[in-house]
């Protein structure tokens, strides 16, 4: 069974917008890969149909069946990690091997406060 992992430098999991993401991707695959890359992306979860966007990618040259590579990715200014009532915006760094789209993932937080933005509850409107 294939194993893919992403480790971030210093075990850091919360990042400020625009910050650099450094880490190491390692993998042990059942077959020789055609390509291996690390992607940083956001996705939505919640009631709506999922949206997702890859914001930066590092493609490794000549990847082996068992390998380890360092990477550097730049985070954009947004969107912030968000935890609303209908929508959540989640960020991850993911190493993906093709064919088969096998992956290893590390969830992160992108926000100025180091925590997902949680809107405060609205005060009750008097009737």
């Amino acid at each position: 069974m294939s194993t893919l992992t992403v480790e971030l430098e210093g075990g850091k999991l919360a990042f400020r917008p625009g910050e650099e993401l450094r880490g190491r991707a390692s993998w042990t695959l059942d077959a020789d890969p055609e390509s291996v890359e690390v992607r940083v992306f956001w996705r939505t979860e919640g009631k709506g149909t999922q949206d997702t966007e890859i914001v930066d990618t590092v493609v490794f040259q000549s990847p082996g069946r068992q390998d380890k590579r360092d990477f550097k990715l730049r985070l954009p200014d947004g969107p912030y990690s968000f935890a609303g009532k209908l929508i959540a915006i989640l960020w991850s760094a993911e190493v993906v091997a093709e064919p088969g789209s096998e992956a290893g993932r590390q969830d992160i937080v992108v926000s100025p406060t180091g925590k997902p933005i949680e809107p405060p509850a609205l005060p009750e409107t008097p009737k």
Partner: protein
Amino acid sequence: MGCIFLALTVQGSWRTIKTYSWERTTCRMLDGFVTRAGGESGDYEFRPRYSYEAGGRTREGTTYKPGYSGSSQAGDAEALVTRYAKGSVVPCYVSGSDPEKSALERPSLWALLVVLFPLVFVAVGVGGLAFTWSPKPKESEADPQTRALSRKSASPMQAAGCLAAFFSVFFLFGLGFSLFFVLPALKVVKARAWREVPCTVLESNVRTHSDSDGSTYSVDILYEYEAGGRMRRSNRYEFLGGSSGGHAPKEAIVAANPPGTRRSCYVNPDNPDDAVMYRGLSKTYWVVLVPLLFAGVGLGGIIFAFRMRKGGARKPGDATSFARAGSGGAAASAPAGPMQLKTAHPVARVFGMLFLALFWNGITGVFVWQMVKQWQTGGKPYFLTCFMVPFVLVGLLLIFGVFYQFLAAFNPRPSLTLSSSTVPLGGSATLSWTFTGSVSRLSGMKVHLEGTEEARYRRGTSTYTDHETFAKIPVFESPGGVAQSGSAEVRVPADTMHSFSGGNNRIVWALKLSGEIPKWPDVTESVEIEVTPK
């Protein structure tokens, strides 16, 4: 089923193709006349008789074209009598394997396109089976923890293409059906220059066309006139062909033209077999508005899709642009300085609501009309009546909406300007407004900034959008009278969420203005603004 239809169609098409292997020769016309087919069709059929040489002897043929069964227009059959005049020598076709088989013309190869119709069903069926039986992609079987969640999102081009394709169906069908009215209307215009000749009514009937959906009717008046040196016959009453519901109007036309009536008809100077009795525009032509409405909706949708493609799926202020590494964010690229906030023009709102009401009630009206007809003719369509009630209620609400928007169009109208095109989290901007119209009618005014989550999702074949307001920030409140113009500061908290648009999910910030007018529709405006990350 598609395969059965395909087999039947191919069998018919094969007969057509075979005639193209027949030998071309010459035939001498012995006779040719028009006869009326028996039964319900009552079509006018050209019956030729000709002689030809084949297999070392002279033979006789009576086939005009394999598969030909006449025409509803007497003029079409009469034109064939002219073309294949007695004594003339014309080209014809004889089967090489059976010289007894012959024809003056061969079926058009265009008819082979009919094979495409069952092919569509076969393709859908084969596609469905292939989808059902094909092995599922490996990734769907994989553990979600080890399956890649990142994927390239559909490009704006793809989304716009799908939308344009969807609206193209409306446009093409609307345009196609409107041609049934537009082409005869063009002939009406051309016929203004046709020659007026006396004609005599030979037969006069209302023709009934029955099928499983009921009966429709058409005027069938056969008349005789002289043109091109001989007597000719036609049964074209007006250029708009086909049949429709409503027996009484057709009966009135037939009653006004009994057999023996002498009146004026109109003949095409370039083709004496082309004649018409009434060359005006009847009320039926107004039906063209229905397919034109569909074509209009389709065209509007296509234009919208192309504009969407041009601008990309994301507007300049959409926050997903922040997600692009190194872009510097949309805040950097957005134009600085004051920005006029666009609100919908009241006349556009009236026409928008009117269009929606016409579209909805136009479609609903067809079913209501059918339902009323059934009640009138003694039927008891209880199920259809119950089914139609909610649709009719929505239609009435839309009509109410038209009146509401019409009254609201006379309200004082605010023009809104924000001192900056974007407002960062923790920042502020000045909102200015100026009213046009009688502002003294307003008894109070409120402005607030509202942050809302919007989630769009599909359930079955329908798409829904849920909203959840997470912030409501007062900007201005005037409980008494309202000045012609004013301004207020819009302050966005630092610890909230910026604008975001992922396609299906959005975080929307909007300035909402409401002005109360006693016993009248209130002034309400809502304009989106862009809140950027710090």
